């Protein structure tokens, strides 16, 4: 089992519904976000290209955050989901320093918080909250090992990219371009 997500940058309009859905579903502390919208403008006026991306933890295959964690609070659960155990986390910030995507933050209680792929929803057979609310249906979630899952099908048929592949983390969120 390998959970992954594909996000269609051609469909995303940057409405931030995914951000609000995540904050509501996971009771994310006020002022913090586990997922966010990035907007890039590329080119020289007047021929510019705009891209919207809904970003979050990439649940990488090669995880620097888990490697550098001194206590084992950062760990990988079934399906390749990277999680943090609050009772083991000392808040040293090593995982925050080691993430090329800056996807982690220090919660007001002190432990490090991040996207969980809504594993509590997956366990009930539901999609993560961000995927479920997306009004343009630009996000696909599923198991990469299953050839018939939504995510497998869409990345087999479309061109895609991952973020900062040169960082060597082998990210598992695919952006359809």
């Amino acid at each position, binding site marked *: 089992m390998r959970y992954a997500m594909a996000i269609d940058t051609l469909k995303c309009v940057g409405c*931030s519904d995914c*951000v609000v859905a995540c904050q509501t579903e996971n009771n994310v502390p006020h*002022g*913090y*976000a586990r997922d*966010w*919208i*990035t*907007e*890039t*403008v*590329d*080119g*020289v006026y007047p021929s510019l290209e705009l891209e919207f991306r809904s*970003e979050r933890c990439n649940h990488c295959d090669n995880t*620097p955050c888990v*490697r*550098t*964690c*001194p*206590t*084992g*609070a950062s760990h990988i659960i079934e399906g390749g989901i990277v999680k943090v155990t*609050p*009772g*083991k*986390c*000392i*808040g*040293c*910030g*090593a995982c*925050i*320093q*080691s*993430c*090329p995507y*800056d996807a*982690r*933050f*220090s919660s007001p*209680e*002190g*432990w*490090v918080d991040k996207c969980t792929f809504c594993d509590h929803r997956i366990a009930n057979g539901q999609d993560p909250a961000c995927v479920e609310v997306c009004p343009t249906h630009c996000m696909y979630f599923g198991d990469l090992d299953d050839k018939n899952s939504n995510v497998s099908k869409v990345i087999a048929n479309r061109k895609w990219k991952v*973020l*900062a592949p*040169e*960082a*060597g983390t082998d990210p598992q969120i695919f952006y359809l371009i």
Partner: protein
Amino acid sequence: MKEELIVSGRMNLNIDPVLHIWHWQIPLYLFLGGLAAGVLFFASLYSIRNEEEKYSTAVKIAPILAPIAIIIGLIALLLDLKHKLYFWQLYTTIRLSSPMSWGAWVLMAITPLSFVWVGIHLKEVFPKIDFSQKFFGTLYKMFTKEQEGGVNWEWKFGWLTKLEKLAIENKKMLAWAILLASVILGVYTGILLSAFNARPLWNTAILGPLFLVSGLSTGAASIMWLSKSHEEQKLFSKIDILLIVIELFFIIHLFMGFMAGPQVQIESAALFWGGEFTLYFGLFVVILGLIMPGIFEVMELNGYHIHVAIPALMILVGGLIFRFVIVEAGQITRYLY
């Protein structure tokens, strides 16, 4: 020209707009850890070489700095933790892939060793000092049998006497253990940073040796400053000059690596070459922290009279600023996508 503008809707505290999760505590700790490593390295080295009497400051007096530096450093580290009450989780596991984990364990080993080392030399260092007052007096009374009119180094507790005897009998072994632990501690202060490949400025293997040499240099400078023997001052002045030259070479090496590296490392180097850290690094670290004290030491060896405190202080301050600059600048550097 291709232009790219990135706008992100994220505003997490200490993460955005630029990463700043580590504040003053970490560079201060890296400095104190390096200083302790340097002082203990020379103490154990000259003890192993049977030159205890010749270089008595290095072996017996300067090591007193080590436990003090380590304790202040540990307090700084604790202050840096955001989930402080769980700090003991560090000692429930050994994770070799995490430099912070084995750093925590090395500290666990070297802290008591440094206390033992200082303890077995106390009698010689303070044979007659009057401890009858305030802080030191109270501390002294806690551990030794009271005696009127002077210092009596008889421990109050039997286990302390036994520990002291054991340590003196196995002093060679103790010295070797401290030598090894001090080198690991010195290298670790650099490896801690270089393990983070997400921060291109830190992600270079030269940082380990560079921090070790810088730590040894601050250690040698402190010994030089504390020493009253001309011969010892001269030796540590020479050692320090050598270490400064090696450090300058490593710094050049560091930037050569960046210049030949990927885009993100070229941009990291630019922070020091015309960027916002040029003044701090170029003036305070390289010129005032390395080159000038080096020149002063060479002049001193050639007969000019320069007070030993001047180069020593410059090296210590330079070492401290060096760590602040590297930690602050490193957090700014990142992969762009």
